[in-house]
């Protein structure tokens, strides 16, 4: 699965994975489980973003639209049709994937910053539309107020649990799925095509790779997973609104966690979220509400430092360090 990894790296990955699985037997209080769930959730979201953006080398700052749309589909299917969120989130993810094709088809022709700005524009259009629409052809969207998922009590079918623990394991399972999916993609034809497009788009095209087609395939998978993550978030908080689930802040979080950790790698985005989210959490709790926005100041500074000193993400120097410790060759 991680063919290029050294023995030490594999050992470390296994230890971290085992730690995550057994974490709830060490820490039990709901607050810490909640925090751990959020870290895993952000890892999942960053990894979903990375699935297309990291590999194809385009910066999307509009991914939150997939999270939001799928979240709304899941919640509405539950409240309006009584459909289980487990099925609803698949529909939501599918819906996000279709939407991503509609957005991606025209925009993937654009390069660099133009692509980025267009993704922001699409996401903002959707967010503003949701915020200002109370009722769309009979569907109660409730505008900026958002939707509350009615409480039904401890029920697997309704994706509602009295304790935090089940949510944690669901998030962890989702993370495992995206890690495996990315690892498979990386070694499949799709992965090689995407990396070729990232390296030299015109060159890849000259070799007969259709850049738009393969970018779109990756984007739709990425949007599907992002949508699943959005549905999870809506169920976890039993609440969804355009600002939190569709706003640019979420897109920025996903992107910078990936970039700081190391985009275009299987584990980089997870490393990024494991570094950044705890910072946000500590900034918020230890300093109280007195410093609103402190964690984003730190995110911004870390982002700037990473771009300047580790343009490929923190995972690269980390792997070199590990290789040196184990005495292997530095790649």
């Amino acid at each position: 699965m991680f063919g290029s990894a050294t023995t030490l790296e594999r050992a470390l990955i296994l230890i971290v994975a085992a730690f995550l699985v057994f974490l709830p037997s060490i820490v039990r209080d709901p607050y810490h489980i909640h925090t751990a769930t959020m870290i895993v959730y952000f890892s999942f979201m960053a990894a979903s973003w990375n699935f297309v953006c990291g590999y194809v080398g385009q910066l999307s700052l509009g991914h939150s639209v997939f999270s939001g749309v799928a979240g709304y589909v899941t919640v509405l299917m539950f409240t309006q049709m009584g459909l289980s969120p487990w099925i609803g989130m698949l529909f939501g993810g599918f819906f996000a994937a279709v939407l991503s094709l509609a957005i991606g088809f025209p925009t993937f022709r654009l390069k660099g910053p133009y692509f980025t700005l267009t993704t922001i524009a699409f996401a903002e259009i959707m967010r503003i539309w949701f915020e200002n629409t109370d009722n769309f052809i009979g569907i109660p969207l409730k505008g900026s107020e958002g939707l509350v998922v009615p409480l039904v009590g401890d029920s697997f079918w309704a994706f509602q649990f009295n304790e935090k623990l089940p949510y944690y394991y669901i998030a962890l399972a989702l993370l495992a799925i995206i890690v495996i999916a990315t690892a498979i993609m990386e070694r499949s034809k799709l992965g090689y095509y995407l990396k070729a497009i990232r390296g030299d788009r015109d060159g890849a095209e000259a070799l007969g790779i259709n850049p738009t087609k393969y970018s779109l395939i990756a984007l739709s998978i990425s949007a599907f997973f992002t949508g699943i993550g959005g549905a999870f978030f809506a169920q976890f908080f039993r609440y969804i609104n355009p600002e939190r689930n569709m706003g640019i802040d979420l897109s920025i979080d996903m992107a910078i966690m990936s970039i700081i950790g190391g985009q275009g790698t299987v584990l980089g985005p997870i490393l990024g979220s494991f570094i950044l989210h705890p910072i946000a959490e500590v900034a918020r709790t230890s300093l109280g509400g007195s410093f609103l926005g402190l964690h984003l100041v730190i995110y911004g500074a870390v982002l700037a430092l990473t771009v300047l000193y580790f343009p490929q993400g923190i995972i690269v120097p980390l792997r070199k360090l590990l290789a040196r410790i184990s005495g292997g060759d530095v790649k």
Partner: protein
Amino acid sequence: MDPTLALHVVKNGLLIGGIYGGVALGLSLIFGVMRIINFAHGSMLMVAMYLAWGLWAGLGLHPYIGAIITVPALFGLGYLVQACIISHLFRREKAFVVEPLSALLLTAGVFLVMDNLVLMIFGPDVRAVSIDLAYANFFLGDIPINIPRFIAFVSAIGVAGVLSWWLKTSDMGRAIRATAQNRDAATMVGINVPLVYNITFGLGTAILGLFGALLVPFFSVTPTLGLAFGIKSFVVVVLGGIGSIWGCVVGGIVLGLFEAFASQFVTATSAQIFSFGLFVVILLVRPSGLLGKA
């Protein structure tokens, strides 16, 4: 639409559009010369507005007098951001060519730091300057024209004129244009390219210092105001053609008129959907802008 109403809409669109153009001038200049999209552009306007507000609230300085301080302050801010942060990218890359995305990311980092530092210092409250002039009007025929908006509009055109004249005639202006055309050749004829970059960036943000002071009398400021203005500036620059000074003013006016008419049919917040939609359509259909060369 009845003609009087239409005339009012055109007036509103022209005034705010000219201001959009003025705000976007710096973004266009910086992109034209350095090929960098400054993601923190709107945030720097926000900082300028806070500064103008602070000078008014703290020292009782009228914002128009405060501009004497905000313009050099913002020049310094831009100069320092370029000299201390962005220049590292240029140094790392060969021949002063920067991968556009790393520059965008770097300025996105600056954007996050700036917006949230201001949020930490001033909190999320809306701040406004209240001066009598804010409600003063003069009449052009039957149409009342708000004086501070008119001043900002005229200043936008004035700044565009002065800037294009200065770029054409002064030594530094020539050096900037030469650098924009060909960095390597500019270096070879003895132009100090890093200095040109610092000054270009400083100039681009100094214009924001002016508009920050001109905007506060009729525009209240919050820490999150920057992004909306930043995105609108991108729209304006793309509309007008990147790097074109007069294109910027034209782009601003097109956007202003478009928004003013759109807001006749939907609420003002929903009207933003149309600006973003216009942006997407222009980028997809005519990425070189309205006045740009294809």
